[in-house]
Structures are given as structure tokens and as C-alpha cells.
């Protein structure tokens, strides 16, 4: 599904590599945590995965295709198969909660009544059914993040990448979100979750990738706080 092959990335030519010779392979239907200190490069890896950044060196293939060889339209079509939870929510401030969540379904026209139902269900699931018509400016950080999660999963993506989805929410909500991801994973979605939260990692039996100084230093079936 996703293959990083000796991938390096630097933001500007005179800067040193933020990501250095990275090798990761995420199989179809797998579930991984991506751990690493702040500034380790997790968001950078995610941005390469949704093709917001292209590797400055090495090969990255997504859905079996080299990203450097994709046309702009192909990139757009690939993105429709992906759900991305942005660290800052990635919401549009002039759209209300429901409109933000339904946005990915509007590219193909007006959502069907079945999709409308699905939108309401997912908003319920993240606990925001009473804030459907609120605008992001009036939401708390955690609420925004939950809207972002609902938006990322609403079109049942083949690949879900979540950048700190539990960063601003309490433990109960964090677990709830993880169950949602688990549920999607059971239906075939490949999941990668970046997190600092060690208790969350230990509560779920999924392998973790540990990122340090731009290099994956540990890839264990199960990562536990020492």
C-alpha cells in the first residue's frame, strides 16, 4: 500500500534532512502507530503520504504507484481514497461542523440520502451531534480535532492517516476515536496514527514505528513504555 524506500526530505536546499533515508512499508489492511518526539518529522512523513510534499530523495510509492510519476489529476484521485486527520483539524472556518464533515462527499455532487445519514452518524460518534451547526471559531481545540476526524473517515477511505488525533481530547474520547479507527481497519482500511500518547499505544495491540532524528530506529510488533 505504502512504501518508503530510502526517502529523504529537506524543506530547503541549505537545510539538513528532516527525514533521512527512511524505509517503511505499510501493508494493505495494516494498523501502525507512528511515535516520535516533537519535531522528529511525523507531520513531514504524513505530508509526503498525502502528497503535499514530494520526497527530495528516494522513492515513495502509494497504492502501488511512484508519487513522483503521478499527474496532478491522479494525485487528486488518490487523495479521494485517503482520509487525513490534520494536527490542527484542517477545517474551513466559514463552514459549520456538518458542512466541514460532508465536504469530501461533495466532490461528486450532492451527497445521497444514505451519505447524509452516514454524516450524521459519524458526527454522533465523535460526540458533536449538538454542535452540528456551530462554526470552528466557537469550538474547543479537542472539538475541532474531532470534526477533523469525522471529516477524514466520512468517505470510508482505503488509507487513513491521523496526525495526533488524540492530542487535545480526554482519555475516554481518545479511546472512542481509536475504536472508530479499529472498526474501519477491520473493514479493510489501512491506518497509521501518529501519537505521543504511550498509554494509548499500550492499550492497543498494534505495531509502532519509532522515529528519531529523521530515522526509524525501532519497529516492533508492540511498543511499550520501558
Amino acid at each position, binding site marked *: 500500500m505504502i512504501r518508503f524506500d530510502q526517502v529523504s526530505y529537506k524543506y530547503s536546499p541549505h537545510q539538513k534532512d528532516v527525514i533521512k533515508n527512511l524505509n517503511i512499508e505499510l501493508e494493505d489492511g495494516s494498523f501502525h502507530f507512528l511515535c516520535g518526539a516533537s519535531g522528529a518529522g511525523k507531520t513531514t512523513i504524513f505530508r509526503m503520504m*498525502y*502528497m*503535499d*510534499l*514530494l520526497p527530495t530523495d528516494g522513492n515513495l510509492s502509494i497504492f502501488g504507484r511512484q508519487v513522483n510519476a503521478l499527474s*496532478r*489529476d491522479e*494525485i*487528486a*484521485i*488518490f*487523495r*479521494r481514497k485517503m482520509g*487525513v486527520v490534520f494536527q490542527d483539524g*484542517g477545517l*474551513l472556518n*466559514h*463552514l459549520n461542523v456538518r*458542512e466541514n464533515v*460532508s*465536504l*469530501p*462527499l*461533495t*466532490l*461528486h*455532487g*450532492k*451527497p445521497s440520502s444514505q451519505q447524509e445519514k452516514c454524516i450524521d452518524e459519524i458526527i454522533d460518534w465523535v460526540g458533536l451531534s449538538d454542535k452540528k451547526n456551530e462554526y470552528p471559531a466557537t469550538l474547543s481545540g479537542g472539538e475541532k480535532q474531532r470534526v477533523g476526524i469525522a*471529516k477524514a473517515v466520512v468517505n470510508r477511505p482505503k488509507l487513513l492517516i491521523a496526525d495526533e488525533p488524540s492530542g487535545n481530547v480526554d482519555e475516554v474520547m481518545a479511546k472512542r476515536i481509536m475504536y472508530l479507527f479499529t472498526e474501519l481497519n477491520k473493514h479493510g482500511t489501512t491506518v497509521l496514527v501518529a501519537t505521543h500518547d504511550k498509554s494509548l499505544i499500550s492499550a492497543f495491540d498494534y505495531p509502532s514505528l519509532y522515529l528519531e532524528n529523521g530515522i526509524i530506529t525501532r519497529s516492533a510488533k508492540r511498543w511499550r513504555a520501558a
Partner: protein
Amino acid sequence: MFARHAHSAKKAISLHKDSIFRLLILILSLLGWLCASFIASITMLENAYNSWNLEQKSHISIYLDADENRGKVVNLVEELSSVNNVKRAYLLSEYETADILKPYFSEGVSFPLPFVIDVTVTSQLDREYFNTKVNKYFANASIDDARDLLVKVSSIVRFSQWIILFISGVLLIIVAIIVSLTVSAGLRGKQISLKTMQHIGAQDKFLINLITTQVMQQSLIGWFISSILAGVTLYALLNYWSGLNLYMTNYVWAIIVIVPFLLSIVAVISAKLTAKRMIKSML
């Protein structure tokens, strides 16, 4: 296909509530109004000049001394009437003659009046033949030939027409620049929304169309407003100076519609180009 898309994604990249795009309507309306009124007025001046020109070319006045024999004068008038390409030869009455001369004499016209023959001709008239004919009767007749004057006036008019054409061109270019700067400033403010749409898989064409159609709608409003304003302005002018009616051709009305339309087209094209450039620069 596109209309279906627009319904739901439109709000994400909605330009209608954006103050810069409201400004665009205002700019299009005002500049469209100014340009249309300016160019329409110029066209009316051109019409006025053309009709004056035509009148001058088709008239010859012959002045004869007051002490000439009236019968001989009448004979000349009759003979001139039968010359090829002369439509009409007419001896002015004393009143008409006095009327013509009045502007040149402040204390009324009291001396014996000269004879004035007004001849209406077509452009094919053989002037040589015409002049010898007149001189055969009255060797010292003064034949008022407007050609010299016309040549002089027309070269001045041509020159001012070039200047006006130049100013109109510069005006249109400035307007086009203002419109396209407005559009690109507005779109720059939409960058986050555009990026968000791209991240959920919106294709370039989809976003460009979304922007272009909205600018098109706003340009239509601007076109409508400026044409109406220019129409009202011209209508008011016509009511105030009814003499202008002579020079008010359908062509002038067409200009009022076409000039603001051109500006709207400029707005739409520059929106499309700017949107294209901006969207393609974002991954």
C-alpha cells in the same frame, strides 16, 4: 455535470461574501459606466462631425453683388438647376439672406443685400464645369467652396480621433489591470480553502471552474449595472440637450452594452488565468 458539483462545494470556495469580490462588482460597474459613457459620447461627436461634413460637402453658396441684374440671377439659378449632379439651386429670399448675414453686422443689416444662391449638390459634381458656368454669367461671383476648410477640419478631427482612440485604449488596459489585480488579490485570500479542497481530492479543473463561474456571475451583475447607468446617463443628456438626438444612433446604444461587456470578459478571463496559475502552483 458542473452545476451538480457547484451546489455543495461552492460554499467552501464562495466568493460572494468576500469583500474583495464585492469590490470587483463595484469596480466593474463604475469603470464600465465611465468607459461606456466616454466612448458613447465620443461616438456621438463622431456622428455629429460626419453629418456636418456631409452637409458641408453637399452645399455650395454663390454670392453676387447687390447691384447685379435680378433677371440674370434668376436665369443663372435655372441653368444651374439643370447641371448634372446638382440637386437643387435656390435663390435665397431677402429675409433668409439677412438672417445669414446678421451675425456679421451688429447694428442690423440696412445696406442693399447681395444675392445668395444656395446649391445642393452630390459628391460627383464636376466643379470645373460648375465654376465656368457661374463665371460665364458673373465674372466676379464669389463661389464659396468649403473644400479647403473641410480638409483642414478633417485633419484636426482625425488627429483628435487618434488621441481619443489612444485614451480609450489606455483606459481599457488600466481597467483590465485593475480588474485582474482585484481578482488575484481576492483569490490569494482563498488559498487555504483551495488547499483544503485539494487535500480532499478536488481536481484543478473543478476548482478553476468553481472560481470562474462565480466571477462570471459577478461580472454579469457588473455588466448589467454599468450598462444601465450609462444608458440612464445618456438618456438624461438627450433630454437636457435635445439637439443631441440627431447624433444618437443605434451604434451608440450598442456601445453602452458592448463596452461594459468587454470589461466583464476581461474580469472572467483574468480570473480564470489567475486561478489557473495559483492552483497549479499548489500541490
